[in-house]
C-alpha cells in the first residue's frame, strides 16, 4: 500500500491502516519526542498524544507534502505544548536567567556515538533544549518560532546562541570535540 492509499484508508478509520502508519513512523517520532522531553515516559506521552492528533487531522494532510515531515511537525508541536503545560518543565522555563552563557561562535567537529550526542543535547535546560532542537535540528527560522514560543525574534536568537554555547561546553567536558572553528564561519551568528 503506497502512502496515498494508506492515508486514505486511515481517514476512513480502518484500524489496520492506522496501525501500519503508526508502525512506519512511531520509532522515528519517538526519537524526535525524546529530544524535547526529560524522560522516555514523557516522550511516549507526547508520542501518544501526537499520533491521536495525526489520525484526527489526517484529512488536512496535503498529499503533495511529505507525510513524515508533516507528522514530525505535529510531534514537535505536541512536545512544545506538553512542555508548556507540565510544571516540572515550567520551572525550568521560568528559571531562564540561571542558564545564561556567553555567546559562542565555535563550530567544533563532534566525534561521539549518536546516543551519547542525544543525551548531551538533552542535558541542556529545557528552554535551550527546545530552541536548539527547533533551530539546529528541525531547521526552523527564528521568526517562525515567535508565535509558537511566544517570544520575540531577539530573545529567540540570544537564547539559541546561549544554548549552542552551553552545548559546546558540555561536549568539551565530555572530550568529544575535535577541531575548533570551521573556516569562514567566524563571526557568523546562528
Amino acid at each position, binding site marked *: 500500500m503506497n502512502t496515498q492509499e494508506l492515508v486514505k484508508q486511515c481517514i476512513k478509520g480502518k484500524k489496520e491502516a492506522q496501525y501500519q502508519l503508526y508502525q512506519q513512523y*512511531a520509532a522515528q517520532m519517538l526519537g524526535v519526542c525524546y529530544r524535547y522531553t526529560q524522560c522516555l515516559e514523557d516522550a511516549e506521552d507526547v508520542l*501518544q498524544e501526537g499520533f491521536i*492528533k495525526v489520525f484526527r487531522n489526517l484529512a*488536512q494532510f496535503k498529499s503533495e507534502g511529505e507525510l513524515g515531515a508533516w507528522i514530525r511537525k505535529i510531534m514537535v508541536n505536541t512536545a512544545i505544548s506538553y512542555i508548556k503545560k507540565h510544571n516540572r518543565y515550567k520551572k525550568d522555563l521560568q528559571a531562564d536567567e540561571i542558564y545564561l552563557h556567553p555567546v559562542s561562535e565555535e563550530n567544533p567537529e563532534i566525534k561521539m556515538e*549518536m546516543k551519547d550526542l542525544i543525551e548531551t543535547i538533552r542535558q541542556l535546560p529545557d528552554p535551550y533544549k527546545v530552541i536548539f532542537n527547533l533551530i539546529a535540528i528541525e531547521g526552523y527560522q527564528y521568526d517562525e518560532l515567535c508565535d509558537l514560543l511566544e517570544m520575540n525574534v531577539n530573545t529567540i536568537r540570544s537564547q539559541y546562541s546561549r544554548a549552542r554555547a552551553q552545548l559546546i561546553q558540555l561536549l568539551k567536558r565530555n572530550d568529544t570535540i575535535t577541531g575548533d572553528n*570551521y573556516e569562514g564561519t567566524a563571526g*557568523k551568528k546562528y
Partner: protein
Amino acid sequence: MKGPLEKNIEQQLAGFEIEPSPHIWTEVEKNLHPHRKDRGVFWWWVLLLGVTVVAVFFWKADQLNLTPKKDIILRKTLPKANTVQLMPSGYPIKDLKPAQIKKAGMESILTRKTHLIIVPYPKEPEVLPVDNEQTNLLIKGQQPLVTQTAIQAKSGGISDEKTYLAVKDQTGKNTVKKQDSSVISKDTILKKQPFTLKITPFQKSKWFFTADAGTVYIKGTNLFHSSVNNPAYTGANATTGGAQQIFTTSPQTGFQLTAGLRYHKILSKQFSAETGLQYHYIQNKQYTGNKDITGMYYLPGNSLLLTNHAHILELPVFIKMYLNPDKANPIYLLTGISAEWLFQKKWLITDYTMNNYYYDPSSIKNLQLKLSGGVGIQFKNDINAVIKISQGISPVYQKNNLNQFKQEYSAGLLIPLQHPIHKAITK
C-alpha cells in the same frame, strides 16, 4: 541558519529511533475508536422512556380523572374540536355539551378551562332566582339556560343584546342585566326574537407557533457536576511562566434562536403538556491565537476572533403546572426535556491538556439531551410569554475527560395557530 555544527549534529542524529512500548498503540487505538455503544444505548432508552410516558399521559389523560368536576362539565362527552354545532331556538340546556363560544365583536368570555353553555333566547322567559352556588340562570318552564363557571361570574358573566345574565340587584330582587349592567325589563326581553347560535366546542388541544431568543454558553460544568476538574484553572497551573493559558481566552457569550411548532394539550385543571418540533440555531465568538506550525491548531491568545455555530433540530416535551388556573391570565411553571440533533456544526474544541483549540466535527455529539425549566404566563387570547433556562445533560463534546455542556437562557412567545377569537357565532 544551519552552520557546520548544526549540520554535523543533524547528520549524526539522522536515523535515530527508539522503539515505543506496545501500550502506546493500545492507548492511541482506544482514543480513536472509543466504545460508545453502552452510553448510546442508555440515552436511547431514556429517550424511549420519556416518549412512552408522554404518550401514555396523553392517551390516558381523559381516564385519569384529574380534572375537578366543578370546572369541567361533562368532559367525557366533549365534542371533537373544531366542529360547529347549530343549536336551535329553545334548545334545552341539559342536552348541551360543554362548549366554547365566541361571538364576533364580543370579548373572549372564556378562559382556558371554563365551559359555557348557552341556549337560544326563549320566547317567553321568566327570570328565576339565581343559584349562587352554581351561578346558573334559570328560566321558568325550561331547563337551565345559562350555566356559568366561577371564572365567568368573576369576569362579569355573559351578556349581550341577546344573552342575558340573571343577577340579584341591591335590593335582592332578581333582574336581568345586559353586559353594561343596565337593567332590561321583561318586556324588552320578550320583544327579542329567537336566535340561533353556532357553538364551537372547547378545545382541549391546540397548535402553537413558538419563537424565542437568548444567550448560550458552552461550559465545563453542568447541574450534576458543579466543579471543574481542569488543572488549567487551579493552583500553580493558573500561571504558565509566560505562556498564555487557554482559560484566559474563553469563548464570548453566544446567542441562540429557536422557531417551531408546539402541540399543547390540557391534562387537567392544573396541568398541561406540550411537544413539537423546533429549529434551533446557536452561535458564539471565540478569541484564539494564531495557528501553530502544523496549521491545524489554534494557540491561546487574542489575535483571532472565530465563530462557532450549530444548526439543531429539537424535539421538546414540556409539562406545565398552572399556579393560578382560575385567573384570566394564569401563570405557570414549565419543565421539560428535549432531544437535540445537531445536523450541521462548526465548533472549536478546547484542549486544556495540549493548551490549544482545534476543529474536529467528529468530536461533537450529534445527539444531545437537555433539561429545561422556566416560568410563563398565558394571556386571555392564548398567547404565552415564557422565560426559560436549559441545561445540557449530555455533553456537546468531551476532551481529556472534561465534558463540555450547553447552557441556554431564553425568552420567547407561543402564538396559537387556532385563535379562538376567530370563531364567530352567527345568527
